[in-house]
């Protein structure tokens, strides 16, 4: 049965000619902005009675229909924050989980700043749950106390005789819903310091609570930036400089004449935007546009030049990041010495949703639709471009189709680009026209802001008894923070994101030296899921494995002895080894193959993760990761299933980098452009993964990133155990 007829033409994109009855499954027409924003911000839709009747604080509202809307200050990019933070509120509130709705918070540093980041609102560093744990619990507890006070007044009974369970407030036979009490609760005084629960009374925290976003994400109804359609919206695609640092010299738009659907051409910081009626129009226009670039001062290095520069620098001592004892002297006197050098490439984030942003600017105020990770930094950056006050930039938070750090650009690159385009349109008299900036996959991969490449030089010394007595670790890598708005975080010449995981190494080594060179290279770099730990964990965990082997000791036992004062790493390592059956020999593989099992343990963002990888190496040197056993110590696991999901995903994301990830630079330009030459992990390459959580009642620490660092070294160590070489360059290649 054909229920509906639609016409696709250039001018009117969609006309509904005739609709035959109800039950339409198509989203028809163009939604007004407000409806779209509401749909996007609200995961589970709210009904007519859902207008807030009680807003005790900035983190939740309760409506007459008893729905509890939790306002989440972090962007949901898959890590589960739209479930985790609402869980805290629902638990303290004793709400039924089915009452809970979720809304992304607007940009407001005063209300929603990240408590670990000072005055800035933003998501990153695996902080979402860790930083907001007390705050969202207190918010729920405050609302509960006010509902109870309202019921106590209504029923004329003492507040401490009132129960709240599963969304119902009761006293004996008297019962009321949150909605029935909401208006009265709103009149109650705010409790100064609301008492949070004794953990023994938790109903959701620590148990399985289903994700709030699984339904919309399984049915194609979740709204991402890419999905925003506003009345009169245009789409922009940008012609980008061929190499980093090049500038626009001249623009020849003649080729655009005769191309349908092209509306405007606007110069942006690193290129030229072609603005059209639709993506396809704009993309064809962009491809046809001729731009002459001034790259006289442009970057001309290739990867080999960058590596040569790194090698030149690594020969000399760098800025000291950590120094204990006398590493040089201890090394000189060691019975056995080990030396190694490690190379790591640039890595693109390659989130499934390429960068994009929707902005509308009416000359006085701007509205932004974005999977927004650096809310107040991006708000300020957009305001600066437009010459308006930051509070005149309203941000509608949307789901992010992955980020892995990319949507938190230290220079607000893609949002500045979008703001520049609407400013350009305003100059051309087109105020109020919304524009969606869309990066193609190739644009996304070529835009830079990679995980920085690095070179590590390491030396270790063992005494006659096989004890590790000396450790020297020198790192050469571009600073992420220097030259960015976060440059003040560089302390004593050391960018902490360059040495994290190395300078704070957990192993007790009496003589230890970690130093750093931060060469200036024009390839833009930024945080990439687990940041410095992406390379330091590999260097440390494969080198410690070599040390164990040189000492003739079991790699797990060798590590454990050095981690006696690191309870988190020790607990994770012990649990992983136990669950992986480390004490028993690994089952052999098919004839002609060799199998190996490797371990790595690493603490990042205060969470310790141990991973044990089982690898089969074929005669031709190809290898497959068969199974990974992971144990995580992250304090209290608020939602154990999401903790497991983040470990599984972190392992897969890290494995993609271990097996394939590499952006190479040629003549100042990135070589790779799409998933054909920048390979990522596919399902047939995903090992079986088992995740175990160390039981803990400690305050939760993050899980979005810490699953990533141990996988590459665990795999490299497994290959070595299978009789392969010690691999010291990523991506890992064993074939000769």
């Amino acid at each position: 049965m054909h229920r509906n007829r639609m016409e696709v033409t250039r001018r009117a994109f969609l006309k509904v000619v005739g609709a035959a009855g109800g039950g339409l499954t198509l989203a028809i027409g163009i939604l007004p902005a407000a409806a779209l924003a509401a749909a996007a911000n609200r995961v589970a839709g709210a009904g007519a009675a859902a207008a807030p009747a009680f807003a005790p604080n900035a983190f939740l509202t309760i409506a007459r229909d008893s729905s509890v809307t939790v306002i989440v200050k972090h962007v949901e990019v898959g890590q589960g924050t739209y479930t985790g933070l609402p869980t805290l509120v629902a638990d303290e509130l004793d709400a039924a989980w089915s009452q809970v709705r979720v809304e992304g918070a607007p940009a407001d540093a005063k209300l929603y700043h990240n408590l670990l980041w000072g005055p800035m609102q933003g998501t990153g560093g695996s902080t979402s749950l860790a930083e907001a744990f007390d705050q969202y619990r207190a918010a729920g507890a405050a609302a509960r106390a006010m509902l109870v006070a309202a019921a106590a007044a209504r029923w004329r009974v003492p507040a401490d005789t009132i129960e709240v369970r599963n969304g119902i407030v009761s006293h004996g036979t008297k019962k009321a819903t949150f909605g029935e009490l909401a208006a009265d609760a709103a009149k109650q005084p705010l409790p100064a310091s609301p008492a949070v629960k004794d953990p023994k009374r938790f109903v959701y925290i620590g148990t399985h609570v289903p994700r709030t976003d699984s339904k919309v994400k399984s049915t194609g109804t979740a709204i991402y930036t890419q999905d925003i359609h506003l009345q009169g919206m245009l789409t922009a695609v940008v012609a980008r400089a061929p190499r980093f640092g090049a500038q626009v010299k001249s623009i020849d738009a003649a080729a655009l004449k005769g191309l349908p659907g092209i509306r405007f051409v606007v110069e942006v910081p690193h290129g030229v935007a072609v603005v059209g009626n639709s993506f396809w129009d704009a993309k064809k226009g962009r491809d046809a546009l001729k731009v002459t670039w001034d790259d006289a001062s442009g970057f001309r290095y290739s990867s080999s030049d960058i590596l040569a520069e790194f090698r030149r620098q690594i020969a000399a001592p760098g800025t000291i990041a950590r120094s204990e004892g006398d590493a040089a002297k201890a090394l000189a006197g060691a019975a056995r010495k080990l030396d190694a050098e490690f190379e790591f490439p640039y890595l693109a984030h390659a989130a499934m949703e390429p960068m994009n942003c929707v902005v509308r600017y009416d000359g006085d105020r701007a509205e932004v639709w974005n999977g927004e990770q650096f809310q107040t930094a991006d708000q300020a950056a957009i305001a600066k471009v437009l010459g308006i006050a930051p509070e005149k930039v309203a941000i509608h938070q949307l789901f992010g189709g992955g980020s892995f750090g990319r949507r938190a650009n230290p220079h607000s690159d893609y949002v500045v680009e979008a703001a520049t385009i609407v400013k350009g349109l305003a100059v051309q008299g087109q105020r109020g026209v919304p524009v969606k900036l869309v990066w193609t996959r190739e644009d996304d991969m070529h835009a830079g802001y990679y995980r920085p490449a690095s070179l590590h030089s390491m030396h270790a010394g063992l005494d006659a008894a096989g004890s590790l007595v000396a450790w020297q670790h020198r790192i050469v890598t571009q600073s992420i923070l220097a030259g960015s708005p976060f440059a003040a975080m560089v302390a004593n010449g050391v960018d902490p994101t360059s040495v994290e995981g190395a300078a704070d190494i957990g192993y007790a080594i009496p003589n230890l030296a970690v130093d750093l060179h931060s060469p200036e290279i024009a390839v833009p770099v930024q945080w990439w899921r687990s940041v410095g730990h992406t390379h330091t964990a590999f260097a440390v965990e494969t080198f410690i494995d070599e040390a164990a082997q040189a000492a003739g000791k079991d790699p797990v036992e060798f590590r454990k002895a050095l981690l006696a004062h690191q309870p988190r790493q020790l607990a994770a390592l012990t649990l992983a080894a136990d669950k992986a059956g480390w004490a028993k020999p690994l089952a052999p593989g098919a004839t002609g193959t060799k199998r190996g099992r490797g371990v790595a343990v690493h603490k990042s963002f205060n969470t310790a993760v141990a991973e044990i990888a089982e690898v089969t190496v074929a005669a031709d040197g190809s290898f497959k990761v068969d199974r990974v056993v992971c144990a995580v110590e992250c304090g209290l696991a608020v939602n154990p299933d999401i903790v497991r999901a983040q470990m599984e995903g972190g392992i897969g994301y890290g494995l993609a980098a271990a097996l394939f990830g590499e952006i190479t630079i040629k003549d100042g330009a990135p070589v790779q452009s799409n998933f054909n030459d920048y390979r990522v992990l596919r399902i047939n390459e995903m090992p079986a993964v088992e995740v175990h959580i160390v039981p803990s009642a400690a305050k939760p620490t993050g899980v979005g990133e810490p699953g990533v660092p141990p996988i590459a070294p665990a795999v490299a160590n497994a290959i070595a155990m299978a009789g392969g070489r010690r691999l010291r360059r990523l991506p890992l290649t064993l074939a000769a």
Partner: protein
Amino acid sequence: MSTFFVNRNRVDVSSDVAPDTPLLWILRDSLKLTGTKYGCGLGLCGACTVLIEGKPARSCQVPLSSIRLGTDVTTIEGLATREARAVQAAWQKLDVPQCGYCQSGQVISAASLLAGNRRPSDADIDRAMAGNICRCATYVRIRAAIKEAAATLG
């Protein structure tokens, strides 16, 4: 003019629409069916997977000019087979999605697999799903959810 059907609705595309326009962008920009996602534009990632005449296809690789008169296209919004319902239920039961951006394509590929194979092995799943990239690497759960869906289909 080109005429085909999307989720059983007739779509008439006027002749002034560029014939090289990929189906993906007709769905997304013209019909506002945004459940089908853009991920790579080269048929490498599977985010834009739809059913054409019941078979999975990468809509970014299907130019308007190649769509034959009367072709049936099904997007995630119109997916309503028993297999699809079972897959979507399993996806929710196991909380498969993380960022979720690729999942429309994953769901369509999984439902197609189950339509032809009610008891897929790990190898069958890997083969059928290898064209769908998930950067969150939800693959462990995709495998489990496909088996869960298969079990509910009996």
